[in-house]
């Protein structure tokens, strides 16, 4: 009996197996390992997102509790910096300030659109904004009759008013034959929060 066929068959099987193994490695294992790497990356990204969302959710919960405990602050903030023009509140506050000071408001002119145009021009010219981002300046021009002390009180009332207001320019003129009386033109800026 010859030993050749036995050995040849075994070698053939080994070679065949090695070939099959190589095919399996390159067609199954290598893509699987790549898949595993991709899945690991996806898992770490998903976990990171999950952790971030969890923190966000926890912070929302914490902040909601804090907000619910400080609703007054939230209301004050909404008055100081509303999301709309709320010119009615401004007018009311100006009249309140005039009443407290004893001054008389003769005219109120809303020049918000002009201020908005000026602000846009500044930005276009690259001069930067005069107010923080997301804040839109608005304004009124008022003419006031008062004496000097009343004007001082009026300015103080405006400075500490519930709606944040800034008197940006001041022009005072005394009236003829009335030494104490004066007329004042004031440019008053107030702001809204441009919420997106």
């Amino acid at each position: 009996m010859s030993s050749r066929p036995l050995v040849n068959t075994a070698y053939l099987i080994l070679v065949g197996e090695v070939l099959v193994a190589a095919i399996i490695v390159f067609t199954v294992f290598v893509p699987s390992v790549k898949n595993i790497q991709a899945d690991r990356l996806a898992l770490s990204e998903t976990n990171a997102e999950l952790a971030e969302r969890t923190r966000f959710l926890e912070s929302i919960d914490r902040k909601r509790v804090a907000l619910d405990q400080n609703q007054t602050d939230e209301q004050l903030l909404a008055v100081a910096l509303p999301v709309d023009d709320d010119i009615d509140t401004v007018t009311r506050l100006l009249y309140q300030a005039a009443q407290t000071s004893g001054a008389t408001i003769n005219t109120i002119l809303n020049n918000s659109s002009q201020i908005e145009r000026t602000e846009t021009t500044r930005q276009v010219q690259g001069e930067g904004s005069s107010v923080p981002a997301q804040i839109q300046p608005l304004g009124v021009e008022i003419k006031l009759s008062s004496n000097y002390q009343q004007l001082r009180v009026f300015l103080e009332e405006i400075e500490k008013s519930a709606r944040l207001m800034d008197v940006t320019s001041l022009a005072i003129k005394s009236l003829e034959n009335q030494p104490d009386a004066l007329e004042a033109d004031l440019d008053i800026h107030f702001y809204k929060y441009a919420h997106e």
Partner: protein
Amino acid sequence: MATVNLAPNTEYLLVARRRQRSIFTIVAIVAVILLVVWFIIFSLQSSLDNQIEDSRGRLRAIESEIARLASIAERIELFEGRLVGLDQLLASHINWDPLLKEIERLLPPTATLTHLTTQTTDGGLEMVGFINNLDQLSQALASLENEPQHSSLFSSARLTSVTREPVVDSVSSDQIGERYQFTVQFKYNPEVLRGL
């Protein structure tokens, strides 16, 4: 003692069978290794798939919770945005008190102001008034300007015009004296009025 080989060439057959067994052992080992590697890869893949599915499930749950709290999140975002904006605006909030106090402090009591114009954009202030004594005016101007010897809010004070004019009695129209109408321009740093 002499031996007799009763089946000549059978030693080759034995060697061939041993070699065949060795080859089949290698074949079996390779097959086992392939199976083990395949099992490891399959297990890893399954485990990762399960973990990813689990994480995505939790992420979906958190996102639906966040979506449920969208209005609260918006409320918090609005509050925080306003708070930051208001904080920045307060840092540049204008207070006229120091400027008016400075004018009151340094202007001579005999001077009468008829016009005062100022704006915070350029820090310019123009003052028109009357005074009986020009000496007092020049002393006042010197004291209104910031110098090493005395501090003042104004960086410069410039007398632009002085006009002498008669003071006439309002009843008899007789000249009862004379006075000087003056115009003075001041410069100040508007930042000193901000954030007080």
